[in-house]
């Protein structure tokens, strides 16, 4: 069959063009602008003077940036790996159920994921609120002193991690389930004929065959948790936002609260570079460890 290559290219270009135009307009162009602004002392609106690397140099001695970077890293540590493990465990459990029961249980685990973050905040505030939260009444009943969970530094990030895992695990569970279903039943049958223990089956069959999904879930989690903002913002309202600061919140605060577009852009660029570097690094690591087998 004759293929008109030129025509193909043309059609491809036409099909891609709308996306490309929008992508260039609302993503690439603002990103380029952001890099430019980060070298100026611009306010939120309007132009500023070129100040070179000043905005970046200031980050080094900026205590709030340090708090934000540390809290973000801490949050990633508390959510990414634990979140992946929890989702995997739940998926393994759900996959043992059959038919309607499985659908029902899966729906229960997936439900939080479809809630908007503001609803998630309200639900958990009803649970954790120091004066009126349900959990505080349980503590009273047990005779334990109440803990101001969302109001103290020590408890805030762990609480956010629990809330976030509860909220987002549903999606990861779904991915894991799809992965589990793709593993052919014959392999498990063969293993049971050989009297393989459950642990051996998991370690030698399920884990390696599920590995691509695991690394996908891990990567998605990592990128989305680095960009944490909503939960921290909502739970810090009327609280202590500066102690709970995370990087995206810091960008927001510099830009919208303190009217410093240039310094906000510098933080945003730093976060951008960080996300790219971490993702690439993590992808390489997973590829290497995957290739070892």
């Amino acid at each position, binding site marked *: 069959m004759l293929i008109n290559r030129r025509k193909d290219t043309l059609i491809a270009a036409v099909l891609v063009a709308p996306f490309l135009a929008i992508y260039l307009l609302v993503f690439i162009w603002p990103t380029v602008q952001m890099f430019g602004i980060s070298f100026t002392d611009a306010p*939120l609106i309007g132009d500023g003077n070129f100040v070179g690397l000043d905005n970046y140099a200031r980050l080094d001695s900026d205590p709030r940036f340090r708090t934000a970077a540390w809290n973000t890293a801490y949050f990633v540590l508390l959510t990414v790996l634990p979140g992946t493990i929890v989702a995997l465990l739940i998926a393994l459990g759900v996959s043992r159920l059959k038919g309607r029961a499985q659908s029902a249980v899966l729906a229960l685990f997936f439900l939080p994921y479809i809630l908007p973050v503001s609803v998630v905040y309200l639900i958990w505030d009803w649970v954790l609120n*120091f004066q009126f939260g349900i959990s505080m009444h349980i503590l009273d009943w047990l005779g334990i002193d109440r803990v*101001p969970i969302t109001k103290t530094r020590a408890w805030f990030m762990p609480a956010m991690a629990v809330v976030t895992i509860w909220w987002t695990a549903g999606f990861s569970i779904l991915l894991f389930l799809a992965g589990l279903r793709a593993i052919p039943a014959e392999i498990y049958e063969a293993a049971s004929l050989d009297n393989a223990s459950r642990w051996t089956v998991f370690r030698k069959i399920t884990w390696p065959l599920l590995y691509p999904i695991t690394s996908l879930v891990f990567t998605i989690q990592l990128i989305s948790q680095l960009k944490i903002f909503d939960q921290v913002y909502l739970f810090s309202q*009327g609280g202590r936002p*500066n102690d709970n600061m995370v990087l995206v919140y810091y960008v927001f605060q510099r830009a919208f609260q303190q*009217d410093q577009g240039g310094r906000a852009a510098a933080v945003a660029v730093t976060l951008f570079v960080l996300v790219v570097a971490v993702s690439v690094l993590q992808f390489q690591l997973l590829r290497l460890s995957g290739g070892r087998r």
Partner: protein
Amino acid sequence: MIVKGMIKAAILATVCFAGVAKAEETIVWWDFLGGGDGVRMKKLIEDFNAEHAGQIKIDATTLEWGTPFYAKVQTSAAVGEAPDMMTYHASRIPLAVQQGVLQELTADDFAAMGIGQADFAPATWDAVTVDGKQYAVPLDTHPIVLYYNKDLLSAAGMLDENGLPKGMDSGENFTATLQALKDNGVPFPLGSVTADGNFMFRTIYSLVGQQGGELMTDGEFLAGDNGDKLANALGVLAGWTKAGLQSTYTDYPATVALFTSGEAAMMINGVWEVPTMTDLAAQGKLFNWGAVELPVIFDKPSTYADSHAFALPANKGKDMTPEKRAAVLTAISWIEKNSLFWATAGHIPAYAPVTKTPEYAAMQPNATYSSLTANMIFDPKTPLAGVAGPIFDVMSTYFVPTLNGELDPAEAVASIKEELNGL
């Protein structure tokens, strides 16, 4: 015939033009009044629209208070999409002028409204003035007051013969009142928004004012002994926490709930909660309550206040027509002159002719606490001040740990000084 036709056309055109000029002028209005006061403002707007039917119509939108409101005003003014008029905090005006967000209100504008400097208290007028120019018309002042539960205080023997709390004259006596309530089994003698440093700024700044302290002198923050005065103020509040006399780690809604449910006997909060209390009391769901000027903890009475004002945004590349401007000025003038109703939202109307009326003098609890107008202090005049502004932000960071006993007041002041002067 042709001439006649032309004359006819000319007459027709004149009539039409006159018709256009007389057409209803719509004013786009933004505010941030989301609470009980917002309900009252909506009523005022409805009344205004009814009275000016066919001439002027206010199209009002209520937006989220604080940073979201001010960020939206700033960005929309920059692209010519801001409203025709809006509510604004007087404390934010220095920043707004620096950002070029507001239009100046000229002497002609005030003449058109029939309102002038003489109609406002000097401090209120000064709060909307930057470099001798006015940028807004003050609508009210909204100080903080002490709310109290008459039933609980009376049970503890802490009400005087006028039904006012005892111990309002010194720190020691007020602490004794709190202690008496505690001893009488009240879980939280004082409901305090201890989880929200932004909110506590108002109380703490009032206490600094009671010692004659100032936040900013000659562009320097907490110079001289002003730092010590801040530490004293923090020390008193931290002391109440230590003695178990106030609620800890309490956010704003929880504080109001503690008070209205009778778990807290007193509460320091803004006058904007007055409608909450009146409405609950009207439904028979509240105890006997009252509101008074803050206790004098230090040397002299002093209360922090801010002011809601009306301002006209400076829309980039979009000139206001004289007709529109006239309509906006009419609206502001009308609401100012009808602001007696606004006082039911707890606020003290800024327009003095209203507060001088016998109706206002009879209004409760406003009349009880309106004595504080003589002792009000406003934010320092700097672009860094104002609700949700940088000063609020820095201070709030250190207030929460100090008020809940995590941090020593002196250490907090040292950190605040360092951060504020580094802004």
